[in-house]
C-alpha cells in the first residue's frame, strides 16, 4: 500500500511544512531533498522547476545545463528520466512525498516527465498558472490544464493517487483581496475534480492582516466543503507571504512565524515557507531548512482556541457570490471560468494579462486590511473606498507593495531595542 500525498498530509497530525526549493544541479537538488526530509519538522519535499521549463523553452534549459549556468530551478523535462529517478531514489518514499512546483500554463510535458520519474503530486491550475505567468491565452491554458489533469490521472503508477494543488490562493502574490483568492482556489479545485483528480489541495497566500487572513481561510474551508464533491479528499495549504518580502533577516523570520501561527489558528494542514533570502536571491539549502524548522517550532507552540471564531466581515459571502456567479455561467468549471473572465465577473487587480478585464483595483486601508477600491464588472458591492484610493502614482504603488516588508523590517528593529 502506498501512502498518497493527500493521505500523508491528512494523517500527519500536525502542520506539514514544505519548502519552495529548486536547483539545476542534480546533486544539490538531491541534497536539498535529503535535508528537507531530515529537518526537525514534519515535511514534504519539493522540486521547483526553472523558468525555461515553465515557459516550454527546453532548448534554453538544455543550453544552460550544458554551459554550467545555474538556473532558478530543476529542469525536469531536460534531464533524462533516469537521472530524476536516481535523484529521488531512497529519498522520496512513504514517509516523504515529493511535489513538483512549476508555474506553467501548458504543463503537459512536465506532467509526463514527473509521472515518468514516479511522482504523482504537482500544483497549478488553468487560471492561477496563466494570468500571473505570461502571455498564453486563458482559453489555451484551460484546455491544456484539462488535458494535463487527465494525463496526470492516467500516467501515475498503478496504485498511486494523483494529487493537485490549486495555486489560486496566490494571484500575483500581493494586492488581490482575500475573497477573490478564496473563490479562484475553490473553482480550480472543482475544475480538477471534473477532470479526474480527486485528491486536491486549496491554497491561500498570507496577505496583509492576520485577522483578515484567518477569516479568509475559514471561508475557504467552508466553501470547499460546500462545493467540492464528497468523494474528493482535500486539504488547505497556506503560503507564507508571497509579495515583496522584508529585507532584514529578523523581519523575514518574524513574517514566516506569523504565517505558521496563521496556518495553525485557521485549521490549515500544510504550510509552504519563505526564507530569509527571499528578498535577495534563490535561498540555499540551509536557509530552507532553517525556515522549515522555525515554522514547525512556531506551529507546535501555537494553540487553537476553537471557541474564538473571529469577526465575520463578509469574506465568505463575497467569495460565495463569486463562486455562484461563475458556476451559473456553465456547468463545466473551465468554460465557466473563461466566461467569467471575459465578462469581467472575475478580475485580478493590476494583472497585465489581456484576458483579464483590468477594471478592478485594491488598496490597503489604514488598519492594514486589503480592500477593493474598484470592483469593475464583478458581482460584488464592496464598501466605498476613500475617494483617492484608486489613483496610482509610482510612489503609492511602491508603498502598497512594500507595506508588509516595511511593517516587519520596522518591528524587528524595534524588537532589537527591547532589553
Amino acid at each position, binding site marked *: 500500500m502506498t501512502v498518497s500525498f493527500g493521505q500523508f498530509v491528512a494523517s500527519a497530525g500536525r502542520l506539514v511544512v514544505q519548502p519552495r526549493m529548486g536547483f539545476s544541479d542534480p546533486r544539490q537538488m538531491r541534497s536539498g531533498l535529503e535535508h528537507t526530509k531530515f529537518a526537525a519538522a514534519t515535511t514534504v519535499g519539493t522540486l521547483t522547476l526553472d523558468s*525555461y521549463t515553465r515557459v516550454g523553452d527546453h532548448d534554453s534549459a538544455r543550453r544552460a545545463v550544458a554551459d554550467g*549556468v545555474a538556473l532558478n530551478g530543476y529542469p525536469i523535462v531536460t534531464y533524462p528520466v533516469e537521472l530524476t529517478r536516481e535523484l529521488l531514489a531512497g529519498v522520496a518514499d512513504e514517509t516523504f512525498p515529493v511535489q513538483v512546483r512549476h508555474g506553467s500554463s501548458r504543463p503537459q510535458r512536465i506532467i509526463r516527465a514527473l509521472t515518468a520519474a514516479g511522482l504523482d503530486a504537482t500544483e497549478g491550475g488553468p487560471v492561477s498558472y496563466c494570468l500571473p505567468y505570461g502571455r498564453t491565452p486563458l482559453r489555451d491554458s484551460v484546455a491544456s490544464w484539462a488535458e494535463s489533469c487527465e494525463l496526470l490521472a492516467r500516467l501515475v503508477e498503478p496504485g498511486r493517487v494523483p494529487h493537485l494543488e490549486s495555486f489560486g490562493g496566490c494571484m500575483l502574490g500581493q494586492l488581490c483581496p482575500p475573497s477573490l483568492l478564496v473563490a479562484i482556489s475553490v473553482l480550480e479545485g472543482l475544475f480538477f475534480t471534473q477532470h479526474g483528480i480527486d485528491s486536491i489541495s486549496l491554497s491561500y497566500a498570507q496577505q496583509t492582516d492576520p485577522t483578515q487572513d484567518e477569516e479568509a481561510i475559514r471561508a475557504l474551508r467552508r466553501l470547499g466543503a460546500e462545493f467540492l464533491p464528497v468523494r474528493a479528499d482535500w486539504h488547505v495549504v497556506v503560503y507564507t507571504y508571497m509579495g515583496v518580502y522584508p529585507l532584514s533577516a529578523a523581519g523575514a523570520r518574524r513574517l514566516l512565524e506569523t504565517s505558521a501561527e496563521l496556518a495553525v489558528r485557521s485549521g490549515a494542514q500544510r504550510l509552504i515557507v519563505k526564507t530569509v533570502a527571499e528578498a535577495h*536571491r534563490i535561498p540555499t539549502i540551509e536557509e530552507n531548512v532553517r525556515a522549515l524548522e522555525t515554522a514547525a517550532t512556531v506551529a507546535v507552540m501555537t494553540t487553537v482556541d476553537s471557541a474564538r471564531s473571529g469577526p465575520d466581515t463578509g469574506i465568505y459571502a463575497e467569495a460565495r457570490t463569486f463562486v455562484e456567479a461563475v458556476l451559473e455561467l456553465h456547468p463545466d468549471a473551465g468554460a465557466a471560468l473563461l466566461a467569467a473572465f471575459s465578462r469581467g465577473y472575475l478580475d485580478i487587480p493590476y494583472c497585465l494579462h489581456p484576458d483579464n478585464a483590468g477594471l478592478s483595483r485594491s488598496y490597503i486601508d489604514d488598519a492594514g486590511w486589503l480592500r477593493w477600491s474598484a470592483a469593475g464588472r464583478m458581482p460584488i458591492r464592496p464598501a466605498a473606498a476613500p475617494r483617492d484610493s484608486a489613483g496610482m502614482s509610482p510612489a503609492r504603488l511602491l508603498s502598497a507593495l512594500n507595506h508588509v516588508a516595511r511593517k516587519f523590517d520596522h518591528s524587528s528593529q524595534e524588537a532589537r531595542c527591547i532589553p
Partner: protein
Amino acid sequence: MNPILENVRLNVLVSGTASDSHTWNLVYLQLFLEAMGNRVVNLGPCVPPQLLAGRCLEHRPELIVLSSVNGHGYQDGLRAITRVRQEPELAGVPAVIGGMLGVAGERDAASAARLCEAGFDAVFDDGNLEAFERFLARLAGTPAIASHGRAES
C-alpha cells in the same frame, strides 16, 4: 525629480524577458516613466526576442527598457538585445536592462559587460532607479532627444 527629466518626453517601450513572468516590476516601471511625462507601451511578461524585435519595429520607441528579476536576466537579456540589434532600423535606439539579473544575489560584472558589448547602453543589475534617472537625464541632454523633447513640450 531632476528638473531636466521634466523635459524628456519619450516614446518608451517597456518589456519583460523571454522566461520571466514577473509583472509588478513592469507595472511599476510604466508608472515611473509615465510620471515623468513619457509615453509607455508595456509589452508585459515572457516576451521572446523575436516578438520584442517585431514590436519595436511596429512602435518605433525612442528608448527600450527591459526588466528581468527571475534570475535568468543575464542570459535572456543577451538574446533579446542581440535580436533587436540585428534590425538595422533598431541599431541606434537606446536600450537598457535592469532588475535582478542573476540567481546569486550579487552583480556579475563579466555578464553585465557582455550585455553592454551586445548592445545595451546601460545595465542596472542592482535595479538602481536613481542611476536610471541619471541615465534618462543624460539621454535628455543628447542633441537628438533634447530637440525632440522641446518640440513636444
